[in-house]
């Protein structure tokens, strides 16, 4: 089954006073299968966030067509932004429940808080949280709505390595409990290999898909750094065009 079909003919940012127009995406065609964890890898500034914003319906100023397979009446899209984007005047729990319909089951939120180890912090205001905790809250918010598609925009940037690893493991645990299509943007190839079923490599702007590669390391071997490093070396050897990107 195809979860997302992307066919963006053109996305150009209009010119402003000082800067000329910027063509971010040109002829991007992608077909992404259901319930897979897909990592979009590309150099920074290549238009990955632009692509996610288009998928989330936040940016409608483009030419092309996007179809998203959905179980709900309108496609539900969970979006973990690069910065956590929590409402500072709402507690952790309120931030999550606000994204849910009023008749939601509080047990789902409890379970998610528990998995992400935030049960003790649920009545805390976000300004008192560390960045790692805020990121976890925004991940819970995205999971809680039971999304058709989950978009994640470099959610582990500027976390220290141990915290990033911990949140990554929690993320995968959560995703395995309730599989759905995940689009995870990163420019860190090791992180992508550790997480993804499938890697999609994107070029510098105007952005196009360069190649798609399946990651065949079993899920229980993903915390093995040598396996990931070996996969990375082989990947770079087999696909010299990718080496130029990163």
């Amino acid at each position, binding site marked *: 089954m195809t979860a997302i079909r992307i066919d963006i003919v053109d996305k150009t940012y209009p010119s402003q006073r000082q800067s000329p127009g910027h063509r971010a995406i040109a002829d991007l065609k992608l077909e992404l299968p259901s319930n897979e964890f897909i990592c979009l890898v590309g150099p920074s500034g290549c238009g990955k966030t632009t692509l996610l*914003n288009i998928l*989330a*319906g*936040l940016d409608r100023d483009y030419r092309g067509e996007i179809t998203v397979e959905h179980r709900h009446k*309108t496609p*539900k*899209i969970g*979006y973990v*932004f690069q*910065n956590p*984007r929590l*409402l*500072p*005047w*709402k507690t952790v729990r309120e931030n999550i429940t*606000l*994204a849910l319909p009023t008749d939601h089951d509080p047990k789902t939120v409890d379970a998610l808080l528990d998995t992400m180890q935030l049960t003790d912090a649920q009545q805390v*205001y*976000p*300004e*008192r949280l560390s960045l790692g905790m805020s990121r976890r809250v925004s991940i819970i*918010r995205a999971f809680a*709505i039971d999304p058709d598609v989950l978009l994640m925009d470099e959610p582990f940037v500027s976390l220290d390595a141990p915290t990033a690893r911990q949140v990554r493991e929690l993320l995968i645990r959560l995703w395995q409990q309730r599989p759905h299509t995940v689009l995870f943007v990163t420019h860190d190839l090791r992180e992508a290999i550790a997480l993804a079923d499938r890697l999609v490599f994107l070029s510098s702007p105007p952005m196009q898909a360069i190649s798609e590669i399946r990651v065949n390391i079993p899920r229980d071997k993903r915390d093995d750094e040598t396996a990931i490093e070996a996969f990375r070396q082989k990947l770079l050897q087999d696909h010299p065009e990718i080496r130029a990107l990163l």
Partner: protein
Amino acid sequence: MTSTKLSHYRTLNLLSILLFIGLWQGLALYLSDNSLPTPASVTEVFWQETLSGQLPYHLGVTLLRLVSSFAVAMLLGCAIGIVLGRNQKLDAFFDNWLVIFLNIPALVTIILCYVWFGLIESAAILAVVINKLPNVVVTIREGTRALDKDLLEMARCYHFGKRKTLVHVIWPQLHPFVMGATRSGLALIWKIILVVELLGRSNGMGYQLHLFFQMFDVAGILAYTVAFVAVIQVIEILILKPLDRKAGRWRR
């Protein structure tokens, strides 16, 4: 704040008020003239006016005008301010109007309202509202322009809907601006209301002050002033401060 620090501040507050009254008393004794009565004689006038029911009545009438014109100006001002802050075209179109209304002298609007609509209550209220409205609009417009785009995008992405977005995303961000408009608004409105009453009403503080002026009754003027300042302080302490605390409890 620790409790010792708090009591320290209270003592300082008390001292500053005592010093103010002391200075007043000294100056009044030095001048010993009807144009500056002592605090004691002002207190006496205040007490008599209160007992006779004159002061509560006129103060009440003025406060009623204050509340109604303030409510209308704030509601309209917030609505217009949010719309202008979110819509660039409308903002560009109405910007000139705002500048015009901001710069019409208060006295002119008051006179025009009375000339056009007669010496009636609604004309008085309208005059106050027209004077206050542009200030509220400008403040709330600034607040709306400064809204966090990231949070608005988040609200859109998670299908918050109009009402939820307004209540939980936009309003908390506007709160400091609304409080600013409220404080400056109360101060501005009550000054204008007195002029409105002086020119065209037969009750209220402004009317009374006008009478006192004609009789050169400075003690009466000061007694009414003290009453009004006290009322505004009570509003600040009982309504505005708690609102501030409630809205700011999430801050570190």
